């Protein structure tokens, strides 16, 4: 009961926020809304019993990635040109096409999705799964995990290289 109420509450907020994120005018507002969005999404994760993922979501997504967005917005000119450009008619046609495509696609998907049976649903092991996640991560997924660390390293280096101002003296 409580779970259902929480879910629909969070879901309605998330829907509104998701739409708002892509429609608001100012990037800062969008980032703030996205933070809330992710925060509430973490709530949904917690509701699903994925506490570790929820916390990770908050720490990394909300606490780090979106701070980066915030930084970039502040480093760039706050008064930057935010005008939407492009042919309105063409955009509208394409917009409708994509929307209709998504609607059609989702309709078909739900139509064809095999309903979950009671036997499929297992939720016992989900309590306190941080330990299991750790075990799986370091046993079955050790190579992907190491590759992910490499990816992060590459990300750091390339981000620095790309965004670095071309320095006058080559010693730097």
């Amino acid at each position, binding site marked *: 009961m409580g*779970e259902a109420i929480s*879910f*629909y509450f969070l*879901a309605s907020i*998330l*829907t509104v926020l*998701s739409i708002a*994120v*892509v429609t608001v005018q100012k*990037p800062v507002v*969008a980032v703030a809304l*996205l933070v809330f*969005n*992710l925060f509430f*999404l973490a709530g*949904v994760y917690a509701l*699903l019993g*994925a506490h570790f*993922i929820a916390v*990770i979501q908050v720490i*990394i*997504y909300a606490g780090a*990635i979106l701070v980066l967005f915030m*930084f*970039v917005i502040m480093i*760039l000119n706050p008064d*930057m*040109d935010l005008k*939407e*450009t*492009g042919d309105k008619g063409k*955009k509208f046609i*394409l917009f409708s096409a*994509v*929307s209709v495509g*998504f609607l059609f696609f*989702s309709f078909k998907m*739900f139509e064809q*999705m095999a309903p*979950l049976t009671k036997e*499929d*649903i*297992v*939720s016992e*092991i*989900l309590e306190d*799964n941080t330990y299991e*996640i750790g075990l*799986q*991560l370091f046993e079955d997924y050790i190579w*992907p995990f190491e590759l992910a660390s490499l*990816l*992060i390293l590459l*990300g*750091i280096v*390339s*981000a*620095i290289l790309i*965004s670095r*101002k071309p320095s006058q003296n080559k010693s730097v």
Partner: protein
Amino acid sequence: MVPIEHYFILALIMFTCGTLGVLFRRNLLFMLMSIELMLNAVNLVFVTASSFLGDLDGQIMVFFVITLAACEAGIGLAMVIAIYRRYGTINPDFLKVLRG
């Protein structure tokens, strides 16, 4: 008990919002944020499936997706800065260097 479809519908709404944002917002920052939104929608599907099926693989996948998202955001934003420095705009309509 909330049926699994409702989680999926929520994910679908978020994903659609993200896609439309990527496709129609004429601003690189908004495009990146919309991509984050899309990734999160996917994460939600993973976590939901993982939770309903009692399989932790989904959550581990989310872990990796978040890793990827961190890199993506870092590099993407670095590129946004570089592009802004170079062209003075982050509107992709003005960045048609590869125009045919």
